[in-house]
């Protein structure tokens, strides 16, 4: 097999690995955080009416 073909295959493999790892990282970040807004919960207290 031609050397340049093999080298192109290696570059493609590395880029593929990078894309997959970035996708996995984004997936992990999504799992750790809520879908919207910040991770801290809002405290809502109802004031009694007189």
């Amino acid at each position, binding site marked *: 097999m031609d*050397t*340049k073909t*093999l*080298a192109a295959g*290696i570059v493609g*493999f*590395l880029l593929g*690995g*990078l894309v*997959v*790892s*970035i996708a*996995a*990282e984004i997936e992990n970040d999504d799992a750790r955080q809520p879908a919207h807004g910040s991770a801290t919960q809002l405290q809502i207290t109802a004031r009694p009416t007189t």
Partner: protein
Amino acid sequence: MSSMGMTRNSMAANATLHCLTGCAIGEIVGLMVGTALGFSAAVTIALAVGLAFLFGYALSTLPLLKAGLSFFGALSVVFAADTLSIVVMELVDNLVMAVIPGAMDGGLVNPIFWVGMMIALSTAFVAAFPVNRYLMDKGKGHALTHQYHHHGDHTGHGGAQEQERSGQPHHG
């Protein structure tokens, strides 16, 4: 720069790429296996270096076997031609991987591993290029293997060194 200098640079670049391809296959497989199985950095590097030499030599030996050399004859030519280049590549490659924070212990799903690998292999190419150029100028390195390759396979090869050695007997 003269056309002869450019030809030699291009020959050296081809030789370096050829060497790097074999090294990279072994290096990537070794680092992937070591990282996936959770080996320590030292064991992972040892595995990667071993496989890089194995694949590097194999990739250079196969064309010589096809050219009709005996196994040990081909191996002796390849040892003489590729060893220094592979040593330089492996030193630089593993050093770069070791100094990039998180590249060795982040796992395969860590983008730093893949970016680190790209940086390490690119740096290894840059480091090994002058070595191959120097060896080629001295009639060593990949210049030793050129005489066994078919002329049609390597366009642009065949500088002064090759013309000088055209009358010499084959190695092995």
